């Protein structure tokens, strides 16, 4: 592959009756590029040298990656190639080069079999406005291969699940943007797919609607449905997805577990209640940099040894330790830095 490998160390903190336990976990990622080893049925999608060109424009450029089951965020700016990738996954467009395997099936060889396992929620308006939500979702259930009676029953259940139980017999033309997004999600999952492709599911939603939609997306994972959520909103991905794929101008920037991509900034935040000044004085006396910000103490640490110093000073002063968290970079920062590196 030619990609360089590195190890990211993530730290989780568990508080139990004032005692602090620090666990170190090592997660292997490959950067820029792919997650490490996935075998058997752990993976749901495999792209090999995927390239798509529209005339002189290269929409996707030699993408090679393997994605695990679960909630995956596909991140990129507008025009990065997210929708193109979805079209290729659905077999609606042919790759110029490379191959795609979804749930172990080659898309080029058997697109129908792949589509019968997928659900798709496009970004744009795509619902017949003069029909009721119940009719539309039931019809798409039948189109997914369900018998008519089962499709109507599932349409009712799914519309209830997405919060449209009361509105399901109203024409979609009278729906708000949030209700239409929910209807789009409902039609995507009514056929009980193994994998759902969500293209900008929170587009056009107000903050409350966005949170509700993200909560619904997060629930899909617990139902055993894998999700690929394309978005340019990194906050959405950070909130919901277990795995992130970042693409820029059709090229792979990075792919890895969300947690592992959030790098440590070298600072930790500690919450010792109203005793911040005491611990700051002790830390400064120990030669470390610490300040109180909004009632919390921010400490710059250089290596794991200094974390032990922080813990010991808190214990020596007999202060209660309510929280100790490692400050992480945001996905925005990761994306900008990695995209610059790749380009």
């Amino acid at each position, binding site marked *: 592959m030619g990609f360089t490998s590195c190890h990211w160390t993530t730290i989780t903190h568990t508080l139990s009756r004032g005692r602090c336990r620090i666990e170190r976990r090592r997660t292997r990622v490959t950067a820029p590029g792919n997650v490490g080893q996935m075998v058997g049925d752990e993976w749901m999608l495999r792209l090999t040298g995927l390239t798509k060109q529209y005339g002189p424009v290269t929409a996707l450029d030699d993408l090679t990656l393997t994605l695990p089951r679960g909630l995956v965020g596909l991140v990129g700016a507008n025009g990065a190639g997210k929708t193109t990738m979805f079209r290729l996954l659905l077999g609606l467009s042919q790759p110029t080069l490379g191959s795609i395997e979804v749930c172990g099936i080659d898309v080029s060889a058997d697109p129908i079999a792949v*589509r019968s396992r997928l659900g798709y929620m*496009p970004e744009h308006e795509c619902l*017949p*406005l003069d029909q009721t939500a119940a009719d539309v979702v039931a019809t*798409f259930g*039948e189109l997914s291969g369900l018998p008519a009676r089962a499709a109507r029953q599932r349409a009712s259940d799914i519309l209830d*699940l997405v919060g449209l139980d009361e509105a399901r017999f109203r024409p979609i033309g009278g729906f708000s943007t949030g209700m239409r997004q929910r209807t789009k999600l409902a039609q995507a999952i009514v*056929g009980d797919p193994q994998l759902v492709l969500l293209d900008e599911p929170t587009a056009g939603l107000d903050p409350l609607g966005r949170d509700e939609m993200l909560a619904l997306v997060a*629930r899909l994972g617990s139902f055993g449905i894998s999700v690929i959520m394309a978005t340019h909103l990194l906050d959405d991905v950070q909130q919901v997805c277990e795995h992130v794929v970042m693409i820029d101008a059709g090229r792979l920037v990075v792919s890895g577990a969300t947690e592992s991509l959030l790098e440590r900034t070298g600072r930790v935040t500690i919450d010792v209640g109203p005793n911040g000044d005491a611990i700051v004085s002790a830390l400064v006396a120990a030669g470390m940099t610490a300040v109180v910000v909004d009632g919390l103490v921010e400490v710059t640490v250089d290596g794991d040894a200094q974390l032990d110093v922080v813990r010991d000073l808190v214990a020596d002063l007999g202060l209660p330790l309510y929280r100790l968290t490692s400050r992480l970079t945001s996905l925005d920062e990761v994306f900008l830095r990695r995209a610059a590196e790749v380009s």
Partner: protein
Amino acid sequence: MSRVGTGAVYDRGYRPYEGRRGLRGAATFALYKASIRRALGLRRSWRQKVAPFVLLGVVTVPAIVNVGIGYVTRDRVGSDRLQIITYRDYVGVSSALLLFVALVAPDVICPDRRQRVLPLMFARPLTGADYVIAKTAAIASILFAFSYLPQVVLFLGNMLVSDAAGTYFTGHMDVLWKVPVAVVLLALYYAVIGVAVASMTDRRIVAGAAVIGLFLVTSIASGVIVGDFEPGHGSAAALINVLALPLYLRDLVFLGHIDAKSPMSGVANGGLLSAVTYAVILFVGLGVLLRRYRWVER
């Protein structure tokens, strides 16, 4: 005294589907059924039901009138009995049928593209050919029903007002296969043309006008070129009449030859030419549709 309820709200959650699941055939049939429902305005507001069912009523009126006249003149003997329409004549192009094609074909086709529903459909186990088959078959089925049901009314009515229903039935056994065959040829032809023309645009009004325009313009052009003609001295130029072309095949089904009053009468191999032209138009129409829906561009 009010009582405190003891009910509970349950989250039914999500249940995976573990039953039987169809593939292309099931999806195509589902789209066929959905298209028929849409064309007839079923599961839609009452306004959407008015046009198709009024037009069905209109195309049935001649049969009812014919049966009524037959009942009034039932005491007359032989040729004194009035009959305003024959089974062959009734397999024909009425304004209502033309209007129906121009109304329904765009309504079934155009919104899918205009409202951008096609990507959702093609994300299912469905191909472009399946889509074309489902939509064309839906329109053809409705056209068949609209043309065949009045014939059933006419046949049953004539049988009931005849002197002996059994004798009438046995004497008109040929109608039982000629009418369905001729109606199938007619329905398939108008369905393919209607759907093919409607697929060219996403605006229903434009598609409807284009369907009517195609039929009327070719009909008028043919009339101008052929002009007045004596029975048995028609012209092959009548073939450009896209509207009337299936009527020549209808004549072949009912009579075995082109009717003497037809503008194609007297043309050498007129029946064969009509059949070939019919096949070419169907082939071109289906080719346009298959090409149009080969890939979804939105």
